[in-house]
Each structure stands twice: as C-alpha cells, then as structure tokens.
C-alpha cells in the first residue's frame, strides 16, 4: 500500500464561494491506514484544514447515519467504511446542501 492517500473533497461554503470546487489532500499513513473514512475526514479537519465541514455523531455504531457521504460516487457511512489510498468524497445528493459534506436532513432518511 502506498504510504500517502489522495483524498479529494467537494468544498462549497455558500457564504464565500460562488461555485463548488474540489480540493485534494495528501494524507500520510497515520491519517488513513487502517482507519475509517470518518477518521480520515477528522484527520484532515484536525491536522490539515480546519475549515472542512462534516457531520458525525455516534462515530462507530452505524446507527445515527449523520456521517453519510458519497465515496467514489456511492453513498456510504463514513464511520463503518475503511479508507483507501484514493478517495473522492462528496455530500450525498438527495438532501439540500449546507456546506462541504454537510447536508440538511430535516428529519428524513
């Protein structure tokens, strides 16, 4: 396995951005190897880019589904999916977008 993972994330902050953009992060092994997608998102937020917005809650139980994201064009729970060396992360498309990976669920799903 490569030591660095290439993680591309959909970024859009409606208060500053006119258009959505994709940002690519090179994540070292400690931020993705043997970790879940949620761990990697948290790693990027903590060590690389604190402006990244994401949801989490139960973190590990696959119950709350707050962390649902689109990984390589497929909806997954970030907390129970293992990270791989190349990932494209986008918000799920069936809810209104708030920012980055965060959507507005409005009691649905």
């Amino acid at each position, binding site marked *: 396995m490569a030591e660095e993972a290439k993680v591309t994330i959909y970024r859009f*902050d409606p*208060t500053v951005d006119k258009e959505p953009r994709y940002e690519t992060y090179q994540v070292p092994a400690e931020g993705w190897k043997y970790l879940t997608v949620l761990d990697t998102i948290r790693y990027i937020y903590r060590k690389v880019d604190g402006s990244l*917005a994401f949801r989490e809650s139960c973190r*590990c139980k696959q*119950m*709350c589904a707050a962390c649902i994201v689109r990984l390589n064009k497929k909806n997954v729970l970030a907390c129970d999916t293992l990270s791989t060396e190349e990932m494209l992360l986008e918000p799920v498309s069936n809810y209104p977008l708030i*920012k980055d990976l965060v959507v507005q*669920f409005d*009691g649905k799903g």
Partner: protein
Amino acid sequence: MDINELKVDVLIIGTEAAGAKAAIEAHTEGVKVLAVSKGAMGRSGTTVMAGSGVQAPLGHADPRDNPDIFFNDVLKGGAFLNNQKLVERLVNLASSEVVKMEKWGATFAKTKDGRFVQYLGPGSTYPRSLNAVGGGLQWRKALRAEFKRQKIKPLEDFFVTKLLLSDGQVAGAIGISIRDGSIMVLRGKTTILATGGSGQMFRHTDMPSGATGDGLALAYKAGAELMDMEFHQSFPYHTYGPPGRQYISSAGIRYFLRAKLYNIQGEEFLEKYLPLSKGWGLRDPTSRAIYLENKAGRGSPSGGAYISISHLPANMIEENLKIFNPRFLSQAKLAGVDLTRDAFEVGPAMHYTVGGIRVNEDCETTLPRLAAAGENAAGMDGAERIDAGPAICWCLTMGYVTGKQAAARARELDWLPVGEEEVVAEKKRLESLFSRREGVRGDEVKEKIKDIMWEKCGLIRDQAGLEEGLKAIRDIKENDLPRLSVPNGSRCFNVEFVDALEAENMATVAELAILSAMMRKESRRAHYRSDFPEANNREWLKNIIVKNRGSEAEFRTAVPVMHKLEPPSEEGAEESHG
C-alpha cells in the same frame, strides 16, 4: 436590540427521547413548543444508539413483576443514593409511557398471543426489558412520526450557549445557529433541559460526539444545583481493535456466546479480579479489571483485552451468528477477521452519565421555571444505573412529566422579560470567539481533557491522581479557554467554532466531576477509589450537591429522599474490582 427572538410557551433544549417526548406531551396539551437540537434530530444524541432494551414492569413475562419490584431493583442498583420520590413517580409511569411508543410507531418483539417479550437484565428481579427491534432506530422512527403527525418542527443545528435569567428565574436561552452563525434569543414561559450526558470528557466513550455536557454546564452556570457528578458508568466491551475495525461491535459475542477474554499472555484474567462472579461481573468491576490488567503491562496492543469465540466449533459459530447476529458475521468477514481463529480487542468506555442536574419528583430543578429530563437529570439512578433499559424508560417518563407540567404552568404564567445587558454581553462573547484567529483550537483542548479525565478521574481514582487532574483542568480553564480560537472565520457550519463551545462546557463539567470524586472518600458502584476501596454507609449514604457561587463551586451533602425503602444496615459482599 437587533437580535432575532422566538417566543414559545415551552422551550425544550434537546430533541431525542427525553426532549422529543416532552415536546410531544406539552404540544398535545395545546401549548406552543420549540425543541432545539445542536445536531440533526434523530441523527445526533444518544437515543438512536440505544440498545434494544427498555424497562417497563408490565409483568408479561413474569406476572410477579410490578412497579414496586422495579423500584426496589433501581434502589438496590443505585446503592440507595436515588431520590425515592422521583423513582416512585417514574416506575409508576413506566408501563403506560413505554407502551405508548408502540402506538406512535415503534416495533417491539411480541409473543404469538400479542404480549410483549420481556427479557431479564442484570440487576432486575424479573424479566422486565421490552425488546424494541433494532434499538434506537425504533425510538427515532416513533418520535419523528409523532412530530410529523402533530406538526412539530425542531430547530436543528442550533447551539444554546446560555440560559437567560430574570430575577433568578429562567426566562429562556440564547444561542447561535451552526448553519449561518446568527444569534437568536429563545423565550419560553418554562424551559426543559434534555441534552444528554457528558461521556466525551473521557478518552474512551461509546457516547456520541455531541455528549459534551452542554446542559450540565448551562444549568450550572445559571445557578442550578448539580448532583452525583462523581458517578459515570462504563461499559467494558467497547471494541478497541484490531486497528481500523473499531466500528464493529463485538459485545454481542460476550453475552450470547460467552466469548472469552484474554490478556497478551493468553491468560483468561477476569476471574482473578472477579472471583465472586467467576469473571462475569457487572459492567464497572469488569471495566476496572481490564484497565488494571493493562496497567500491569498485560493488555492487548490497543489497551484492552482480546475477546474471542475461537474455542467454539467453526460451523456452530457460523450457524449461530447467521441466525442471531448476521450483521456482525458479515462485517467481520468483510474486515478479514476470522472468528474461528482471530480475536477482537475490547476495553472499557464511558457509557452513561449517572449524575446531573438535581431535580425533584416533578423533574423541576432548583431554578424556577427550569426542568430537566433524561440523562441530563440526576436522582433516578443513584450511584449506578441498572442494566437493560432504564435509561430510555427514564427519558420517556421524565419527558411525560416535564411536558405535562410545563404545559400546565405555561397556561398560568406569562413570559419573563429578558435583560438586554445579558443578551448583549453573550452576543459580544460569541462574536469575539468567532473573530479570534490565533490561540488554541477547541478540538485540541477537548483531546487534553479526554486524557486527563480518563487517567485521573476515570475508572480508578485516588486523592493524588484527582489532585493532579484538578490542577490540569484548572490550568486549561485559566490558560486555554481564554485563548480558544476559530482559525477559519466562516459563519456557516464552522466545526472549529462548535469545538470551542464544547471545550468550554467539557472543562466546566470535568472540574465538577473531579471535585465531587475528591469529596467522596469511599467506593460505591460507578465511583471507585483505590485509596478508599470500601463502601462506607455510615458516612456516605449521601448525595454530593454542587452549585455555582460566582466563580467558586460550592459543595454540600444531603441525605437522599428516602421515604419508602430503608437501606440494609450492612452492604453484602460485592465485587469492586477484586
């Protein structure tokens, strides 16, 4: 004042089992309610993570069960520190309020003749736990459905930062929208706190990321009394490893297949610590045993213990799990863990906040017009919560009590005026935090608190460790909190900003937990002191109560409300950790 304001009869902070139930019960009485959540309703909070059990003394599985037996079990489990009038009220409401959830859409396991299946949990005399199929998802489904039917719309992604007072009474709250950074005043004739626990104070917890003690900090800062803050229940079988596999819950194989626990030397070590139960002790003593085995250098690589069912026949494992736990089986396979050969690693995690806001049997706090429900409140569980579903039972019954009470009071009360000065000061505080780019980030502070609390005020405590912990938390309060910063300035869903607010709340609650633990010089259920390893009923059949006096925490003790059942004169032999 150029601040938006919402005015409702009943303001409820929290939208899960306790908060949503309170909102529904109040709304049914025809008053206007607002339920506010820091996250998304049904996708945040602890309720959705709940196991399948919920206690109600229906007597379907064993006709000998009734509210009085339930009462006795709760008192015995709580080592008689419970508020007996509160427990009496709740056990008498349990059956009606739990069964009501079926009407609202929750699915329970039933027998062929339409009775509820009830199973026996540790600490219960008779089988009492109803089985909501799929656990927390049933509560989410039912509460959301009832919100929809009654057209109640929650205010989501809104962080309440301060309770507003008017002549010593609670007039509502002020907070900030996580979605757009707008500050809003929420006025209620009465206010109910239902924000859950504070497990995030600890390095290891299976509580949700939002369990940062917000309601406790709000109540404390406003001047309400908190109680039993030294008691935090742990769960011993939280998955620690293998690396990257922590999301797979392996606890089920311990309970249903009698999985064995080993240390790094391959020794089944639990019985050494827990001779009375032959290694099958209650949650907290088992947690302490795993913790101590690690302190002795014999833990698993992740700091826990190995858990395995590899001693069972391979085909039996496969066939059993296919029927009883297919999700676990498929997850293990996908992750490359061979259950016939390999082990997971498990270890203790903080699971339930036993202490909380002091309430009477009407769930009213010591501050006028403020109630508390669910895990936010104290007094139901005493020194320990029994197993298998009292937590959701308390949420539903206390939601009922607070909701009905608030609706009745709203009819006779008017809104209290909100002081402009207080609102402006809080707005200024939030604005200044938002504009501080340099300093220390909230998540760094949270990480520090988690280590301090786990090591110094976690499963095993002593005076020296607690003093070190206190010093470290006070250092954070003095040096880090004033420098909390939000490096990215976005007003829209700013996670750094939320982390900063949560770090403040965690530090406030952590200090109170440490001070309470220092004061209780004995061991009792969820509080264990290695320097005072025995329970001391003569001196410590008391609650520790704390209140904010300016910048000082003022402590006192009080004998619990004990109108019904006297504690036994001597505690029987009990496993503490060995």
